C-alpha cells in the first residue's frame, strides 16, 4: 500500500495508508486530513482539493486534462508548477510513497 504524506502549510505532517485506485483527495478526505475538502467527491466541480506535489514526484502522474488545467488557473491559493487537483491523482498498484503539500486555502 502506498503511503501518502500530507504536509500542512505550517509544516505538520499526516501519513495515511492509501488504497490502490483511490485518489489522493479521497485518501485525505476519508482520513480527515485537514485542508483537503473534496466537496464534489472527485468530479472536477469544486477545486477544493488543490495540492502541491513534491517536485521529484510530479512526473509520476499524467499531465492535467483541460478542465483541471483551467481550474488550476483559478484556485484560491496560487497555482505553482507542481499544483494539481488531488482528485485526479490516482494511487497505482506498486506505487512509491507520495508527498503532497496542502495549500493555505481552498475556497
Amino acid at each position, binding site marked *: 500500500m502506498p503511503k501518502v504524506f500530507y504536509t500542512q502549510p505550517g509544516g505538520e505532517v499526516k501519513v495515511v495508508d492509501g488504497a490502490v485506485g483511490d485518489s489522493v483527495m479521497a485518501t485525505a478526505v*476519508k482520513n480527515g486530513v485537514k485542508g483537503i475538502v473534496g466537496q*464534489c467527491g472527485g468530479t472536477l*466541480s*469544486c477545486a477544493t482539493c488543490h495540492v502541491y506535489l513534491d517536485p521529484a514526484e510530479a512526473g509520476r502522474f499524467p499531465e492535467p486534462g483541460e*478542465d483541471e488545467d483551467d*481550474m488550476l488557473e483559478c484556485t484560491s491559493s496560487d497555482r505553482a508548477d507542481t499544483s494539481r487537483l488531488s482528485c485526479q491523482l490516482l494511487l497505482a498498484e506498486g506505487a512509491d510513497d507520495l508527498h503532497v503539500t496542502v495549500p493555505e486555502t481552498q475556497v
Partner: protein
Amino acid sequence: MTVDQDTCGARPPRSVVVVGASHAGVQFADRLRAEGYRGEITLVSHEPYLPYQRPPLSKAWLKGAATEESLLLRDPGHYRDQDIELLIGVGVARVERTGDGVVIRLADGRTRRFDRLVLATGAAARRPRLPGSEHPDVLVLRELDHAKSLAGRVAAGPMVVIGGGFIGLEVAATARALGAEVTVVEAGPRLLARAVGEETARTLLEAHRAMGTEMLLATVPSEIVHDESGVRGVRLADGREIPAATVLLGVGAEPRTELAGQLGLACADGIIVDERCLASDGWTLAIGDCTVHHSPAGGRYRLESVDNAVEQANAAAATLLGAPAPERPAPWFWSDQGDQKLQIVGLMGGHTAMRLRVDPDRPRRRVALYFAEDTLIAAECLNSPADFLALRTAFARGRRPGPAELSDPGVPLKKLLSAAVPS
C-alpha cells in the same frame, strides 16, 4: 423566542447526539473534533451503511464506476480515531426533552440520554399520488438502497423519469449512456423551473434531446400502468401511453420533520433554523436537507446541497461550542448530466437582469450571469469550470460587479473579475 446564552453553548455539553449520519452529520462531528471538542459524539442513522456520499448515486454508482467502499464519506477507522460513536441501521422512534438534555428512544427499544441534540434527518423522496405508483418497479432515488434497486433495473427495458429536476435529469443521462431508452415527463413548461433560469434550462433540454432522450414538457402523467408481469407504461393525461419497464419518480423531496414535530419545533417545509442553526426552541440544532433557513435578504428558503450541509454543520458546531457562526460564503451547487457540467454559485431569485456569455470559440461553454440592479447575485456555468471558480472566488472576496463590466465574452471572466477589484 429568546435564547439564553448560558444554556446555548458557553459551556459545551458532555455528550451530543446527531440524528442522521450523512454529509451534514459527519461534517458536524468532524468539525467539533477539529475545534477541540472532547465530549461524546454519537451519530444515529436508520440506513444500514457506514456514512456515504449521495451525489454519486445518480451518476458514478449507477454507471458501475463506484463501489460501496469508494462511496464512503470516511474510512471506518476514522470514526474510531476520532472517538465518534456510530449507531447505524437503527431509526429513532421518539425524542423527548428532559430538564437538562434529551432522551432518544431507538426503533429497537433502546433509550439513550444526551446533553444536546442535532437533527440532521435529511429529506425523503416525494411520492406523488399517482395511481399505480405503489408498484415495486416504481422507484425513487435518495439512498443507497434505492440506487441499488435502480441499477438493477436499467437493463430491464424502457425507463420513464417523472419530473425534470436534478435527480431525474442526472439519472436520465446516466441511463441513456448505458443504452436504456429513456423518456422524461415534466409537468411544467420547462426543466428545472425552481433551480435554474430559462436559458440554462433550454440548453440542457437540447443536450438531453441530443443524447437521444425523449423529453416531454408540459406533460402530465395520469397513471402508471402495470399488470402481473410488471410495469408496462405511463399513461398521460391526454390518453397516450409511454412504454416503460421502470419508472423513476423525481419530483422533489420532503424534509423529514417527524422528530422536530415531537419536540414542537416550528416547521414550514423544513425545520426553521436561524444562521446559527438553532431551531425555534433556541436549543435544538438542525442542519442539512431537513432545514429551512432565513436568507440575509429576508424570506425563508431551503437548499438541498452538499455545500449547504457542510456550511450548516460548521455553523452548528460553532454554536454548540459557544462561538459565533463562521461567515458563510455564497451557496453553490453542481450537477453533471451526461457530458454537461453545470455549476451554480449564488441564488438567482429576485434578479432584475441576466447576461449570457458564450465562449465564441467553444459554444458549449455558456455562463448565465444574474444581476439585481447593478450587483452580480448568481451565475450558472455550463461546461465552464474555470469561470465558475473565478466567480466563486469573486463572491468570496465580495467582488460583485455589474453587467457592463462583465459583458465582453472575448475577455475571460477571471480577468474581468480581478479587474473589478475595488482599489
